[in-house]
């Protein structure tokens, strides 16, 4: 009886995960297909068309994807650095320091976790527009540097939860030894919360890499296009003409996220599980 249910579970799992992953596997095959083979459900192309990747890489006139990848990676690098510093600083303040209205601001922080971006996007746009920041990366960097932007409140919240789990005796004894609060944060807590910071780095990368709305609004010059915008441009300009190139470039664009996922699976689950569970 138990054997039978186990086999049944295994069977269902196998079928379900095959269905789930089939489009992805098909995608990998399709990236090597010619346009004629594209509409077939079969996984494997009759011949590997590597030129999809080579031509796709140079599909946008005067630019290559090397340019867009360096734009994207530069932006992600800056966003990750400023996010890690600002969110850990703020989280330490909320978790360890005692100041007036702390609970009030904490409630505001929780509220921003649920606030739909649409409510602030228009005034933000007019603000950045009047500052001359449209077509620069400042609309992404400055909010992140102030523990905001995509995922900002979530990162602060996640780090608060993590810091609360660290025994208070630690900072008390450091305090007795005459350590300043900033040094306690910098020398003691930053090394201790490394695992949680890795989670912050991962999600900061993933969400900003996939962000479409913000990049669509604020980046209009091809020269500063990110990978996401370059893909969109390819998609618009050559609709239905060369799917092989489009799918090949799309596939390459999710590689960084996939690599990150396989390199740090454990942190993913940790990050998700700390959002709302004990």
């Amino acid at each position, binding site marked *: 009886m138990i054997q039978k249910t*186990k086999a049944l*579970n295994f069977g269902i799992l196998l079928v379900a995960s095959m269905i789930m992953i089939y489009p992805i596997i098909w995608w990998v095959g399709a990236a090597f297909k010619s346009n004629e083979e594209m509409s077939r459900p079969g996984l494997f192309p009759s011949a590997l068309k590597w030129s999809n990747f080579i031509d796709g890489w140079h599909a946008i006139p005067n630019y290559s994807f090397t340019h867009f990848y360096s734009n994207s990676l530069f932006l992600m690098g800056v966003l990750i650095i400023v996010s890690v510093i*600002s969110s850990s600083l703020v989280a330490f303040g909320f978790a360890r320091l005692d100041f007036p209205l702390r609970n009030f601001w904490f409630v505001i922080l929780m509220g921003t976790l649920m606030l*739909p971006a649409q409510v602030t996007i228009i005034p933000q746009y007019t603000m950045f527009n009047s500052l001359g920041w449209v077509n620069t990366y400042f609309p992404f960097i400055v909010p992140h540097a102030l523990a905001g932007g995509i995922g900002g409140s979530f990162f602060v919240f996640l780090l608060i939860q993590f810091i609360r789990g660290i025994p208070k005796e630690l900072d008390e004894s450091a305090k007795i030894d005459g350590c300043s609060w900033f040094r306690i944060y910098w020398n003691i807590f930053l090394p201790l919360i490394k695992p949680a910071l890795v989670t912050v780095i991962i999600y900061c990368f993933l969400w900003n890499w996939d962000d479409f709305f913000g990049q669509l609004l604020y980046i209009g010059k091809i020269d500063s296009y990110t990978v996401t915008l370059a893909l969109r441009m390819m998609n618009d300009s050559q609709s239905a003409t060369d799917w092989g190139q489009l799918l090949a470039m799309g596939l390459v664009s*999710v590689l960084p*996220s996939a690599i990150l996922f396989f390199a740090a699976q454990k942190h993913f689950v940790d990050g998700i599980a700390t959002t709302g569970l004990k």
Partner: protein
Amino acid sequence: MNAQARTENEQGKGARLKKNKKWETPWIGYAFISPWLAGILLFILWPMGQSLYFSFTDYPLLDAPKWIGIGNYTKMFTEDDLFWKSIKITIVFVVISVPLKLMFALFMAMLLKQSVKGMSLFRTAVYFPSLVGASIAIAMLWQNILGRDGFVVAILSWFGREPVSIINSPDTSLLSLIVLAVWQFGSSMVIFLAGLKQIPGSLYEASAIDGASKLRQFFKITLPMLSPVILFNLIMQVISAFQMFTQAFVITGGGPMNSTNVFALYLYERAFTRFEMGYASALAWILLVIIALVTVLIFATSRKWVFYETEGGK
């Protein structure tokens, strides 16, 4: 987590009363949170106030906003058919995609809870779509496989369906976005999985001795014990489903015949193609009110169906 926070608060309050409301580190505390505080004031609270003000004005970006009272709102409710249509479409999307997503997530989480061979491989396969799901690349993939020449259309035509594009027919275009959303149930599933692991195995063992069937165990143990997690997933998914944008923008562009013109897309079009910033701000506030109402409603009903162990149950 809640209980812990509560006791911490109470301890804090007690200590404060004794010391006659003195804070240990008022200045340094504000120094630490000052980046966030500046960000929240500059980029959240001030823009929210502004957007509320804009919603009562006529504001074509290049000119200054002109006060028109509740003009935008009356226009929206009485003249704007597309507004009503996009609300209807968005609600259909939320009401169908979120429960389906959560059901699949729970079902797969229960299967994955038992330790089977190759568990981590299965988990990866099921989680992967939601890892990359928000990206434009997935939207393009979807556009291809559900388009006129896509393989899904080819497969369905074996079963006698006319070989027409799924995303370009008004009857099925919204369905394709729903399927895409449900396909990404992985992150909810991981949360369910973590929740399931918290349920003590002794509950199942004791009920099995009493002769409870698997089905009865599911309804009497699993569902009640998991209900706080279900509530969390439900609220997060509802909030994000109301704001669905990228997929509709890339895959269908709101068409055909506005059949996928979801609310966030309609708002984007008003704001950034027609530059009607006042009207779009009013739309944004309607969206906020709808999301807030639905969230409050879910919380209000949750008293009836969410079981908290610490309260001793009902």
